[in-house]
């Protein structure tokens, strides 16, 4: 056992074959399986979501990011070490969902923000221009507009590759925010959102068994 542990690399696991493609996860973390439910008129009903988002975004505060590197857009930031630098992810990229202008992330106005991110995988280098594409599907005649920040849900390649917890301690994951705009007035407003990674050959967005591989689906119910 000890011998086995000695053979382990502290920085990088030996194999990454089982996570060749990242999964997608959303924030705030829903209590029940991927269903958000709140009422605009009851701040208590979405307080948890807001806190979760705030907590999640703490490392992204400009204060925390100030030591990070400003990287060139659109290119992989491959590094050779021994010190690995992380790229800044300015919160303002998330615009209305950054929480900077609206500490309630749109929930109080009925335009809730959901953050979508790709799972971290060491050494992953996306090809092409990955972006997260979300589609909303609501019941009845209701139509929903989905706004994505950064625009079109783009994920900049400069945030890749990831070099692991130990070497790349200050690494910040790129995020994509989705904001919902309900147009109809009937309540409760219910919408199912499906997001998936597109635009990159080596990032799968469909797997028979794994519903989170490169995609994620969630439901938002907004009561009056």
């Amino acid at each position, binding site marked *: 056992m000890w011998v086995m542990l000695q053979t382990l690399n502290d920085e990088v696991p030996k*194999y990454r074959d089982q996570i060749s493609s990242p*999964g997608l996860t959303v924030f705030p973390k829903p209590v029940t399986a991927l269903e958000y439910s709140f009422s605009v008129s009851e701040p208590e009903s979405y307080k948890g979501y807001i806190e979760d988002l705030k907590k999640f975004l703490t490392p992204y505060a400009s204060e925390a990011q100030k030591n990070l590197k400003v990287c060139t857009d659109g290119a992989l930031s491959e590094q050779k070490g021994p010190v690995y630098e992380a790229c800044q992810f300015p919160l303002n990229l998330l615009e209305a969902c950054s929480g900077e202008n609206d500490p309630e992330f749109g929930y109080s106005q009925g335009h809730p923000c959901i953050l979508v991110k790709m799972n971290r995988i060491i050494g992953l280098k996306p090809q092409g221009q990955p972006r997260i594409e979300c589609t909303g599907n609501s019941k009845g005649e209701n139509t929903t507009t989905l706004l994505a920040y950064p625009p079109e849900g783009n994920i900049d390649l400069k945030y890749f590759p990831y070099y692991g*917890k130990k070497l790349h301690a200050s690494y910040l994951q790129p995020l994509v925010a989705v904001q919902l705009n309900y147009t109809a007035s009937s309540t409760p407003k219910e919408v199912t959102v499906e997001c998936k990674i597109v635009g990159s050959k080596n990032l799968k967005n469909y797997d028979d068994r794994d519903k989170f591989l490169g995609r994620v689906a969630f439901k938002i119910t907004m009561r009056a």
Partner: protein
Amino acid sequence: MGQKTPRIYSVELNGAKDMKQTDKGDGKDKYRGLQDNCLELRNNQRQEHLTKEIDLDDHKLSNKELETKYHTNIVTGLSSTQAAELLARDGPNALSPPKETPEIIKFLKQMVGGFSILLWAGAILCWIAYGIQYSSDKSSSLDNVYLGTVLALVVILTGIFAYYQEAKSTNIMASFSKMIPQQALVIRDSEKKIIPAEQLVVGDIVEIKGGDQIPADIRLLFAQGCKVDNSSLTGESEPQSRSCEFTHDDPLETKNIGFYSTTCLEGTATGMVINTGDRTIIGQIASLASGVGNEKTPIAIEIKHFVHIVAGVAISIGVLFFIIAVSMKYRVLDSIIFLIGIIVANVPEGLLATVTVTLSLTAKRMAKKNCLVKNLEAVETLGSTSIICSDKTGTLTQNRMTVAHLWFDNQIFMADTSEDQLKQTFDQSSGTWASLSKIIALCNRAEFRPGQERVPIMKRVVVGDASETALLKFSEVVLGDVMEIRKRNHKVAEIPFNSTNKFQLSIHKTDDPIDKRFLMVMKGAPEKVLEKCSTIMVNGQEQPLNNSTAEAFYTAYMELGGLGERVLGFCHLYLPADEFPETYSFDVDAMNFPMSDLCFVGLLSMIDPPRSTVPDAITKCRSAGIKVIMVTGDHPITAKAIAKSVGIISANSETVEDIAKRLNIAVEQVNKQDAKAAVVTGMELKDMSEDQLDEVLTSYPEIVFARTSPQQKLIIVEGCQRQDAVVAVTGDGVNDSPALKKADIGIAMGIAGSDAAKNAADMVLLDDNFASIVTGVEEGRLIFDNLKKTIAYTLTKNIAELCPFLIYIIVGVPLPLGTITILFIDLGTDIVPSIALAYEKAESDIMNRKPRHKKEDRLVNKPLAVYSYLHIGIMQSLGAFLVYFTVYAQEGFRPSTLINLRVEWEKDSVNNLEDSYGQEWTRYQRKYLEWTGYTAFFIGIMVQQIADLIIRKTRRNSIFQQGLFRNKVIWVGIASQIIIALILSYGLGSITALNFTMLRPQYWFVAVPHAILIWVYDEVRKLFIRLYPGSWWDKNMYY
């Protein structure tokens, strides 16, 4: 036998006597013995019924009274209508076969044995667990349902297999009993008719003649020279004369009753049927067998014991971890699921199948060696046998009279008595021999059936009685074509043997063309023959018979008689040509030829010789600590002689009587401690109390029971069982069936055995040979040892399968080994290897150790359980965990991260679980990794089970002493393990339903150092056992 010493056999040469009737005795004791048994067993209702029935009084009635009682007529018989009515009322005149257990019951019985119960319990617990899970979470995994179903399937399939195996042996047996339907000559409607004996009814008048089997219990109305052989009923082998007079109050002793299934040897008789079918005496005795309970087989007891151990371990671990789980704040419902899971994980799923297959493999092997096993469990019973009660005739002996000794020229010569005697080697140069051989060849009525020229002499079929057959074969071997000799020496007159004359005589023209004299040859009871002689031939010369030659004759006669042999005297006389010219007409009724002053030529003695393999087999039994007791209906002298020649009584052992004779003191004065052997007769046995019998059985290592009735066998068996012995009994007669059933293992004779005996027995000896029993014992012992190994092998990995679950509960790591994966070990990779252990050769000479003690030498003992569970089992678990942790660590989850990860790991909503390196995993990615972990753990166990398999080859010897490659099947087993694992991991890697994934080749080798360690550890264990026998180590580490 002490009163008229020395007692010598008289000669019986008459009729169609078969080998069972070698001697003569006082038959009445037998009957008494039978009745006493009936009285002794009176508490049994059936027996009470029997004694009552025996009080039948038909023998006391006059013919007239009988006619009234049975509404029949002695002259005209019954009318056909009457007979048909009676047949409808009483049913056919046949012994109803023992109640056949319905096939479905037999089948179901296979499914509820000791082991099966364990598996059923497991299956039900699984379903209960699923029920609990389902009630709290509708989407819970179906693993428990699968597991329960598989457990149930294992029981059912194994049951079908065992049922099929036993049905197969039963079929083989059935093929033996192709009985020719018996016919009876009956008077009905004033006509003589031949009808099947089955249709006889009470009141029928039947006629019987010599050679017939008596078709029902009959009251004799007319008899002429009628003799019957009652041996099948009483064990008494001496022919009994029968007449129509009422001679005794007791129906069994009176002369005017003939019993169903006994044989009429000679004469003719007419009788009225008084009992048919099961109401006959023999029918009632046969039904006794069903009143004797079948004993539980030792292996069944062992398996029950084993089930108790497994259940005990399972429940204690289960409860312990239930308490731990509850105190760790698991939900009670979850804890119950854990409890059930732990209990079920302890069930060795594959063992039932393995044990059944192993037993049937051995059964097959035994069948090849002529032991047909009816009940699979009996395979092992034979191995634990500590006393064998064996018949003599046919089992220990060849069941064939053979010339054993000759006496002529004042010298005793020994003849070859082996089964396939090709030539006789004694000195044949003397002139006396020339004369003697001629008498032997000529004074003989037996003939070979024609058309057997190519058959070896000893195997040819002969028409004639046993003694004549022996003489014919003997002379055929020595002289060549006897038929041709007889043709050349034309027979002109003959007096056949009869019991009043006790001699046989014939007169021949000789083949010497010059010598025109007739040759008269005679053989018979030696003293009768000698009476008629005045001269004796010595070295080819006639000498007057004087006192000293007569003395020599008597000495030889005694000596041969003392060997238990049947002695015949031979004499001849050349009739003077002047008195008996060629044209002389001999008249055997007028006896117009001399009957005195003959010339005595020699003696010849015959015996039913022991089978040549028997002495070896007895020696083997002795070194194997098995006591062989001979139980025979024969005369004590013959019994003792055969016992001595086969070694049941060893060369230097003496009976009390021997010592008395040697020291010339009274039998009572002999110190009984000095005697090692004892010959107990049925008479003596009858007068013994249970305690006295126990004393005889314990104080003499060598015992022969002679002149015993089949009923007394039961008493002897019970006596042996009181000594805590596992008793094997051989038998063939209907009357043996109670003893066969009572015995721990009843062995019926395949050739000589009756259907009733075969039905009551657990095993059938296809060749009736005692030596086959010994091979059976050897196989039985081997299977016990090998079953131990199989169980040890199986139990070991049980721990390796259980630990993951325990660690999962306590430490909270992702589940290392799934239920389905466990099934693939238990019912997949491990099956062939555990069966392969059945092919393992014995470690040391298993026939040199004592039979195992029923209550001390258990199949699964403490050292076995402790060593398997706690030593090798734990080592194996560690090895498998190493593979598991390696896989997880190399994929990103270090052991430290895994601890207490369980809850997060299993949450479906967590799709970004972080590993030790900051990578995030979706639920499915984790699941896949978990399956890889299962596969890794599986491979880890598999690799170490190879080592486990190798170390289980021996329990004491080093593997290198045993030979690594001697048992090829082990390697087949290892290959099967590897191949199944390869298929599961690579062939079915994509079928996720089975929870197997492709595993990197290098992970296959992670557990190899552990496997080697296991091997080395076990070698050290065995080394210390060998170095320090009897030490603490030996006692606690040898299983």
